[in-house]
């Protein structure tokens, strides 16, 4: 009996050791409470248990869920094994299975309360959700909102390309299937991942790679969309890094690499490298607002503000870029290998790959940040500064913008031009003002004025689907490929918006028609879906004065 319990305890220890430092502490405390007589128990069983636990931990880190399943199948039944099974169920996306196995198992719940909590909330959030396994592509999707399935062709394309790019750049391939949860809101994102909702709201987190899965906020959740493609690629990179490093990569390396990888799956796009990470990191360092790559805490999502998160990302990315620049592109793959299979510490691994320890690299990086900016970086800094000029619009500016927008939405394009133009003077980087004014000019037949109002993408503070669509239309004459690129960029931000998904949605109210062909399969379903999800205005009804029963 003692022998058995000892084995179970060791198994538990190693399992938890692979999860969290807090769990390690709990394990140590638990072991310290064992009676001293247990020291006399056979060490053979203990070693077997430790070995098993270690293997299970590595299996989870490598995301080799099949291997973990086999190990657990042959393990001696006990609380740690049951806890590991529940965790495995979470990794496999079976939140309900994890929840049901833990519902009445107080022993396991007390051993790993986080798994229990996530399993319960995830089981609620995903109950009845639409699961779509794609065996051929090695992907598995779960849509909390079944309407989001319409995005699947886009998601599949991005996921496959991101997997290829990450495999190429980081030297590791993810076991399949890759599981992607598309959730409807931040509350669900929090439920599926365990990230506190307040933290998600504080930093504006839109996706998390945890429990061996990617949990992505549906573009539908944000009114104007967000760059969901790069976000998905970013999270896939996290999983690849976790696997390559056996989950030993520090957070700065995780985030820096993921940021670096999030755009490498595709051709360059207008907003790439904006803002310049090195410029942001340099400004933060010089202004004393630096977060510090070794002070990121347990997650960037848990930082106190979106600005802090932006600085943290910039610092991590620029440090990784600097390391790759100094040590060569292959150094990143080697670094992950050293951390994972090499089982080196970070310092050892960096010394092995780059010749210096972490502290030295950090010092070198800070020195590098302090050196003067290059011409390109200076340009980027100036551009960023220019974009920031309209950072705090006045009340009058708001009012003009709102009036212009209201007039535009009512179809009073001529009347809307003046307030929109007045607002644009104060906020020249606002994409909404630009495309509305351009559309109003286009409605009046002045194509040149429309192009002028629309401006170039460099003038914009952030990507906007409507702006991209109008740019595609204005550039469509003789430049169909470029127009298609604009349309794709629009879908990369807000595929749920009618103006992005349907070619005629933006131009029809202006009395114009699109010169570009409609979207082809498999994206042709986006337009009807966008139209269907558009809220209908309630009919104005006469107020009944006297009621009389009518049969329904």
């Amino acid at each position, binding site marked *: 009996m003692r022998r058995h319990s000892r084995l179970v305890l060791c198994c538990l220890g190693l399992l938890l050791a692979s999860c969290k430092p807090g769990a390690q502490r709990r394990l140590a405390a638990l072991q310290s409470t064992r009676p001293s007589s247990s020291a006399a128990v056979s060490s053979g069983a203990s070693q077997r248990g430790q070995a098993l636990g270690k293997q299970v931990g590595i299996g989870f880190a490598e995301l080799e869920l099949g291997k973990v399943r086999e190990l657990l199948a042959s393990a001696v039944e006990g609380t740690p094994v049951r806890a590991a099974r529940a965790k495995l169920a979470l990794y496999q996306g079976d939140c*309900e299975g994890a929840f049901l196995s833990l519902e009445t198992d107080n022993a396991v719940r007390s051993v790993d309360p986080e798994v229990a909590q996530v399993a319960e909330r995830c089981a*609620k*959030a995903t*109950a*009845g*959700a*639409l699961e779509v396994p794609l065996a051929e592509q090695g992907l598995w999707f779960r849509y909390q*909102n*079944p*309407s989001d399935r319409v995005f699947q062709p886009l998601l599949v394309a991005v996921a496959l390309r991101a997997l290829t790019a990450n495999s190429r750049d980081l030297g590791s391939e993810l076991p399949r299937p890759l599981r992607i949860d598309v959730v*409807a*809101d*931040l*509350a*669900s994102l929090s*439920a599926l991942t365990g990230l506190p909702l307040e933290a998600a*709201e504080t*930093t504006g987190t*839109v996706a998390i790679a945890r429990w061996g899965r990617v949990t992505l*906020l549906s573009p*539908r*959740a*944000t*009114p104007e969309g967000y760059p969901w493609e790069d976000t998905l690629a970013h999270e896939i990179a996290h999983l690849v890094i976790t696997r390559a490093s056996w989950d030993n990569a520090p957070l700065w390396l995780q985030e820096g690499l993921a940021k670096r990888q999030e755009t490498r799956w595709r051709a360059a796009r207008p907003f790439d490298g904006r803002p310049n990470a090195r410029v942001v990191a340099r400004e933060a360092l010089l202004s004393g607002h630096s977060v510090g790559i070794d002070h990121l805490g347990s997650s960037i999502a848990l930082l106190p503000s*979106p600005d802090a998160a932006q600085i943290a990302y910039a610092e991590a990315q620029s440090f990784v870029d600097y390391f790759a620049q100094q040590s060569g592109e292959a150094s990143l793959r080697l670094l992950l290998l050293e951390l994972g299979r090499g089982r080196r510490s970070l310092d050892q691994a960096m010394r092995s790959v780059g010749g210096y320890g972490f502290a030295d690299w950090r010092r070198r990086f800070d020195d590098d940040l302090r050196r003067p900016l290059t011409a390109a970086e200076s340009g980027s800094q100036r551009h960023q500064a220019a974009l920031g000029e309209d*950072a705090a*619009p006045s*009340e009058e500016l*708001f*009012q*003009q*913008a*709102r*009036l212009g927008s*209201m*007039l535009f939405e*009512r179809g*009073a394009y001529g*009347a809307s031009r*003046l307030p929109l133009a007045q*607002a644009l003077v104060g*906020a020249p980087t*606002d994409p*909404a*003002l630009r495309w*509305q004014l351009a559309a109003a000019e286009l409605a009046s037949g002045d194509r040149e004025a429309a192009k002028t109002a629309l401006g170039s993408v460099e003038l914009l503070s952030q990507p906007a689907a409507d702006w991209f669509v109008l740019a595609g239309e204005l550039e469509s004459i003789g430049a169909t490929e470029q127009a298609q690129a604009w349309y794709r960029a629009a879908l990369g931000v807000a595929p749920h918006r009618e103006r992005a998904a349907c070619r005629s949605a933006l131009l029809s109210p202006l009395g114009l028609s699109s010169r570009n062909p409609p979207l082809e399969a498999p994206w042709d379903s986006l337009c009807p879906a966008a139209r269907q999800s558009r*809220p*209908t*205005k*309630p*009919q*104005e*009804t006469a*107020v*009944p004065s006297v*009621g009389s*029963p*009518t*049969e*329904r």
Partner: protein
Amino acid sequence: MRKKRYAWRPVVDVEVLERVRESWWRRVGPAWRRAWLALALAGLTLAGLLGRRGTVSARFAGVSLLLLIVLAGLRLAQLWARQAREPERVVRELLAPLDHPLSERVLRAIALVYACELGGASYGNPELARMHLRALLGRVSFEQLERRARRRRVGLFTAATLTFLTTAGVILLEPRALVEGLNVLVSQRGLAPLPMTWLELDSVSARPPVHIRGTEHALAFGIENAEPEGTWITVRGTPLAFGRELRLSDGTREVSFVSDGQGGVAAHYQLDRSAKLHILARFGAVSIQQSEPLDVKALPDRSPIVELEGAPRSYPLNDLLEVPLKWHARDDHGLRSVELVLESGGREERRSLVRLDGQTPDESGALALPLRDPFLRQTHLPVSVTIQARDDDSSGQKWGRSPALVLLPPDVGEAEAQRYALVDNALGKLTDWLAQELSELPSQEQRSLALAQLRLAAAASPLGLSLPREFARFLEAQQQRLSRLRASRRGLAALKEAVLAVDSAVALLSVQDAQKVSRRLAEITDEIESAARSSARTEQRERGRERVVLGLKALAAGGRQLAQLGALGADLGTIVAAGVARISVAHQSGNDARAARAAAFLSERLRRPNSSFSVAGGGGRGRASQGTRSAGGGSSAGAQLQRISAELQRIASEHQREIESVERAISDAEKRVSSAAVTEEAQQRARRLRSLVDSWPAAGFEPGSIRSSEALAREQSLSAADAMEHLELNRALDSVKGALSSLREASERGRSSRHPDDTPDPAIVEQGRGVLSEHAAWLERAIARLSVESSRSAARQLEGAAARERELSERTRLITERDQKGAGVLPDDLRDELERAARWMREAAGELGAERTANGLELQRKAQQLIERAGPESKSDEASESPDARSGPRSSLPRDTKGSGPSPSTGDAASAEAFRRRVQRGLGHELPGPLGEATRRYAEGLLR
């Protein structure tokens, strides 16, 4: 012939032997027969007595005994026959007792004859052997044989006689017992074949159940009787034989006859179904019935039949202001109560409509279920309305249920969505007007349209949901402001400001409405979760699944309405649609627990009605275009409206506290300044007043009579005395004045009375008026004196109150002043009222400062009324602002005893019930004439 009998054997000379046998049996045979008969009779009797016990073992023993007797007779006959066949038996049984050596020799001689005959010559000569046998038989003594036969005959005869006599004695002692026993012995399936009479019937009566209130009456055997279920049937009679276990049986249920104390027996049987009742005697497991049964057909007490006009039918509540319910209930015996039953989802509410005495077989009534009924207001699921009636059957409640009227409430959020459409449309029209102005095009038409739409939006209440008071006033103010605009540069700026103001207010409204609707949908989701959990239990599965389906329908419809409420509504509407899809999938797969989990998650989400994606703190830099449709984003008017509302609410609440503090200060001061002399005087006056009215008539006279007025005066005087004892002089004065008024009324009635006897008692009226007037005068003086003294005593507090009142007045004035200079969110009339309130508050401050507390308080109260009317709706107002709330008092439909609310005294309740029944009965009939409908509405109003 005899030779033939021995034909199979060698021929022996049997003549002698035959003679021996015949001689014996001639003498003994009859004796044997008698003996056997006696024995058989005795055996039969014994078997009967054994069988009468009725048990299986006893019956087995009886039958065995009978069989034994038969076997004995057979054995005797067999003996006789064998003696005839076998000569050796005659020798052994008849000769041997007489002469044993001779019988031995005869037997050997017979054997020798056989041997010679069958063995041939080697054994000897058969003739010689036969001769030897004959020689031996010739020695037989017939005398001895006859002597012995005589002795045997005598013995047998004696035994038979004794047996017979004993048996006869037993039989004579209890002759029925033998019949009963034999009857029981031959019974089949517990029932003896031969009916017997057990009772000489005295009477057979039937007493119907109490709730039927029938009288006891006689029943008769031999015919079919029909009685209501639950009737007690009593059979009385005199038993024909004692010691029998007599019972009354319907074949399955038996009741025993018990002594009626008068030498007879009686059995009481309650009829629960049609039966043939037999009187029977029970012997163990066997019964013997009396020949004729009592045939009674049971008339079942049927459940009441309830009809509800128009049911079954579904009504969308959108089209109704109230639901007319006209019902008719009938029962075969009598109704006890009629209830209105409302069911929705898992909720049920029963309300008593009529309580009856159980004798009314037929009742009808009508009522109107108003749309503002709390049950209807609190549910978002279809409501099943039935009328259920209960009869008076004490054995078990029998409910009759009418077909259901199903009320389909409006979709959750439908009213809000329509309201939002109205204000959004007004905003659109305003924008159109602005567009015309900006384009310098003729705008008169757009202007008229916009102003009309603003008016309509401010006043409309789609599905009974009006705008929040402050919002409606805001729109009204904008409309008034815009209607005064002239075409000018300033006019255009004002129009822009108005457009932005309305825009921000509309955005604010949409957010508030979306959040409210979201929370209401969360309640439906809770119901779905509860239903899904209950359907996981087998016994409630079907009902639970039905509830889930209903809930999902309501939720989906509400989600569609929610999606129309601006940006937040659209966002939350998407969440609802996704949630409905997930719950439906889980439900359709039969996994109720999963459906419950999905519902729980959705409910949690809807109770937190925020955007799906939000960044705390704005997420960095703002954008000019982000002012789009945000509450207060484009104009200061929204913020100003909120500020004014909040300030008015604060002023109203502070001012109310101020009034209360002044009242308290005055009250405390009055207690302080009340001198011992006043207290003593008040006590004395109270005693005098009590003794004065002691002889006046007490309550109980016909209302409107002189005596009733005098009685009222007495009650009011006693109340005044009580108030004086407690030094509540104001209340005492009111009561005294009331008593004087009652006496005046009595006096006037006396004058107009035509009957000389019907006159007021002058001792009461004249004397009473004098005394009461004197008391009133003293009370007025005392109150005035106390008021002055208490005001002086509370001077310091009043001074402080006056200062605070001035401050509140100034704050109120500033609101109107700032609004006039600012965006003008208050309509003109409201601004006037606030100015008036500020003026009254100033005057109140002056009065309080001058220690004229009564005037000051009066002014304070008037000002408070105006401020409260101008301020935002209170919580209770908000509750009534919900879509289903309607103006007017809440439903006061009679509730079950569990319901809250004041309960009148027993007498009042009885009369109220009688009144209600009369009205309801009247409403149940057609009301002819042009005023019929109006009369019905009036009567329904009375019921409410």
